[in-house]
């Protein structure tokens, strides 16, 4: 299959730490790929570099075959992002937030697009509400709605389910699966919930201390390492890598 994201020899040095250390990987078009690793492994840093929010120290990032260093605008037009550590302004109404981002993405038929998406994500009754009054579950759906406004080809999600209760987390997973199936969107996402990863991901990439460790189809990785679930695989890879995060 075609690689839609190509990361080559990516390095990010901060003053005191090397967050990403010679990382290379591909993400194939139309898949849900999990980016896994212990705390501090460099997942968030990698995702931020894929969005040009952080400048890499060296290495290259290509999306859709275009180099991020020279084609930022073209790339970001076809990408979107969502994470609990980012929020839409709480002092705007849901409708106003959606209109603002639809305008920013230059959506042609703004009204039609928002109409379509609020039905898809079942948030029509939230439109007149102030964003600050929404529950966490409602916010998650709103953020996903925002993330779909520009019909992205690639969706980057940083721990999208981390603050959700099991019920809402389950619904969110179903939504993600549905988006991928029905719209053929490529999703790269991070999570610490291995059950969820097993359920959702076509492929996972393990990184540790900024380095590539392993990748593959979850069920095959479980077999390869001789375990019964991905959680054990995670533990083995993380611990084989030397010191565990807490003393690194």
């Amino acid at each position, binding site marked *: 299959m075609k690689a839609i994201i190509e990361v080559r020899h990516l390095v*990010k040095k*901060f*003053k005191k730490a090397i*967050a990403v250390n010679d990382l290379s990987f591909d993400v194939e078009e139309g898949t849900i790929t999990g980016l896994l690793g212990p705390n501090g492994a460099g997942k*968030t*840093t990698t995702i*931020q570099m894929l*969005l*040009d*929010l*952080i*400048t890499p120290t060296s290495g290259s990032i290509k999306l859709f075959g275009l180099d991020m260093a020279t084609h*930022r*605008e*073209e790339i*970001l*037009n076809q*990408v*979107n*992002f969502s*994470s609990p*550590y*980012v*929020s*839409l*302004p*709480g*002092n*705007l*109404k849901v409708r*106003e937030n959606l*209109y*603002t*981002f639809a*305008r*920013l*993405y*230059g959506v042609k038929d703004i009204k039609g697009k928002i109409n379509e998406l609020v039905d898809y994500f079942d948030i029509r009754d939230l439109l007149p509400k102030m964003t600050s009054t929404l529950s966490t579950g409602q916010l998650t759906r709103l953020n996903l709605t*925002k993330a779909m406004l520009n019909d992205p080809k690639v969706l980057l999600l940083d721990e999208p389910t981390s603050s959700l209760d099991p019920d809402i987390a389950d619904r969110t997973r179903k939504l993600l699966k549905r988006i991928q199936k029905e719209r053929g969107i490529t999703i790269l996402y991070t999570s610490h919930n291995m059950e969820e990863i097993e359920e959702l991901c076509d492929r996972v990439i393990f990184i540790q201390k900024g380095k590539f460790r392993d990748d593959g189809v979850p069920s095959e990785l479980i077999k390869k390492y001789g375990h019964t679930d991905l959680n054990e695989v995670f533990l083995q890879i993380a611990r084989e890598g030397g010191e565990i995060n807490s003393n690194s």
Partner: protein
Amino acid sequence: MKYSCRLPAKEVKLILILDLMKWYRIKALIIRHLYLYPRSFPRIMDVLFWPVLELLVWGFLSAYLEKLNLENINLVSILLGAIIFWTFLNRSQEAVTVAFLEDVWEKNLLNLFVTPIRISEFLFSTVILGLVRIVTAGAILGVIALVLYHFSIFQFGIYTVPFILSLLLFGWILGLFITAVILRFGTSAQVLAFGFIFLIQPFSAVFYPVSALPVAVQGIAYLLPSTYVFEGMRAVIATGTLPLNYLAFSFGINAMYLIIVLFFFYAMFRKVKERGLLLKLD
């Protein structure tokens, strides 16, 4: 509340340097901020109430002083002119910085910068937003000053417009500088948003001429574009004419600072992306 911003898109596009900036993205940012005003009392106060209150305090004070000192006939003009022009500078700076801080406070900055928006578009939207705020506040101050104190800001004739433009420009430059500092050094620097301008005030010769300053700091005064506006304003009141070199200096220094501040802003933004600070800003 609906905003249908029907600006002549074609003409605006021409100004946007051969379409390097996208007008629809600038418009999106402006409308995003305008949404807030109709329902936010503090924001309306910010544009209308505080400037008006200041005008009233100074207006009544100067009216009173004028009665005490019969010889000093232009006191009202000098003080009211000063306070109104000062407001233009102050509010122009604040508009830029606050528009930026709104997105920081709401943790929306990342959402904005994962859209294809350019820094230039981001900056341009703050210029327009500042203009909208200032024109509103300025109109109201102008009317109140006229009705209560028979003071017209247009008594400076054709100079009124370049005076105001120069102050708006300097306010925008200061706002950009403060925004860049907050971006780089975090929200602990946000006191600058409301305090920095008062570092400028004593040296800007707002309420008194440069000659009233100690000789040692007069040099600083002449480095500020605002100084020439306030000196010029007093010259017009005193003599009816304006030494044109005042205007020239004012715009010349502004142009120099504008170039410097744009470099500074882009450099800070680059630094912020290198250090991964966009994500940490709150």
